[in-house]
């Protein structure tokens, strides 16, 4: 039996009318962004003691990547049967580099390639429910 898909971990991303967004935070004092949300700023000299919640930019470029040719140890493996997948480190305009699985063909991973945030299944739980995570998708170019 398959039930409705659900986020593997809650409150990391949300759907907007304009596509998904990662839920980050921003230091009001120095503008440093964080994902996941940070309770306080980590910049040593910063006076920021509160973090304001922000949606992070859904678009960035691939800073670097790897293609996983082995499944991660259970229960955190991906796919059945296993297919190689790319993990990309994406540079966001906010100055933050965020890791995520690249949706689709891992051969498309390339440094500098523009990507866009998406949400897709990472694996199924024992009841057969798709568990969702944030992913990045290659885009044709900067919009």
């Amino acid at each position, binding site marked *: 039996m398959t039930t409705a898909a659900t986020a*593997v*971990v*809650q*409150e*990391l991303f949300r759907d907007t009318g304009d596509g998904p967004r990662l839920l980050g935070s921003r230091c009001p004092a120095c503008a*440093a*962004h*964080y*994902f*996941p949300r940070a309770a306080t700023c*980590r*910049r*040593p000299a910063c006076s920021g003691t509160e973090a304001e919640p922000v949606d992070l930019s859904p678009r960035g470029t691939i*800073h*670097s*990547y*790897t*293609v*996983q*040719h*082995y*499944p*991660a*140890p*259970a229960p*955190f*493996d*991906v796919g059945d049967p296993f297919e190689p*997948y790319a*993990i990309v*480190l994406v*540079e966001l305009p906010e*100055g*933050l*580099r*965020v*890791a*995520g*699985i690249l949706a689709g063909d891992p051969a498309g991973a390339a*440094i500098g390639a523009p990507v866009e945030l998406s949400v897709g299944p*990472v*694996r199924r739980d024992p009841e057969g429910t798709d568990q969702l*995570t*944030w992913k990045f998708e290659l885009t044709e170019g900067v919009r």
Partner: protein
Amino acid sequence: MTHETAVVGVGLHEFGKFPNGTAAAMSRRVAAEALTDAGLAWGEVDAVVVGSSRFSGGLARGLGATDVLDGLGRSGIPAFNVAAACATGGSVFGLAHLLVESGRYETVLAVAGEKMPKGFIARSEGAPEDASDVDYLRWACVSMPNPAYWAIACTRRMADLGTTDEDLALVSVKAHRLGASNPYARYRDEMSLADIQESPMVSSPLRLYELCAVSDGAAAAVLTTTERATRLEVAPVHVAASEIATTAFGDPVLTMPEISTRAEEGADPVSETTIAVRRALAAAEMEPSDIDLIELTDNSVWQELAFPELWGFCEPGESDQLVREDETMPDGRLPINPSGGFLSFGEATVAMGLFQVCELTWQLRGTAGERQVPGARTGLAQTLGLGGYGTAVVLKR
């Protein structure tokens, strides 16, 4: 008043898979060997520092100090447990050094041993599904095992500096040449370039034989004041510096197990180790050119190429050429991992910092045999642990 400190005894268990051994028994053996090496009796040890594992999810497990003491006589001796993931051994040494240097205890035994589960390192069994734990998030949301972190940094290095697949493989060829002559190493066979390049791809561009395995192993060192050392028969190896650091803000390289980083202009890459090494060189009043050999954490071939450049031992991109020209071999310009490194030993995570101290001690005594760095007078050892822990030790003859 601080006290000059020396390593006067070391003990190393051979690395491998020992189904019938226990971490406690292996640790007791190397502790006893280190004391014998120093010419000291158990009763002359004033305190003990022992490495425990720190796995994900807040689960501490593994060796405790009393496991090592048991069977050696219950004297009521003070004991300290230290945990810093793969930087544990370096941190154990750091605390032992501090205890002697501060004058609190004269002679301190540092020991760590571990039996590793089979296969790739996983999130600890039973660790909670904790959304505030980035280690949980990297597994649950990104399915991102440890080698993926090194691979992502390595892909970027190849694009920025022109490192080739062959350059990567040559690091492993060199490691196995050295491991072949080290009786303590787990992997004692030389490997050809083809052997490495035909091994299965794990996290591109890193192949299986370009990654360290996990092993069972243990290592120990005895530290005392140089004043006390002069009354021992063994030639002391002096501790010129022992430093510990943690990840700093703005590090452009993703620190395991984080899932994001903010890259700040001018911030140190792999900051926990880069800062530890910088502090250690400063404390030792040395420049990189004063160091005769380095034992570093070659969890993968990427670290061995990148780290010496990040620490100022050579220029960005120069490591590839140094390896290609055998300059990182014991008789080269910049000897790195004459022991054979993690690639030849496999990693018994908590023991590695002390394994490195064993190798440096033998090298500085001039007793390292076939892998001896000719005339070695100074050595640097470095560890890096999950969660952002770095250590650096400088020893000198």
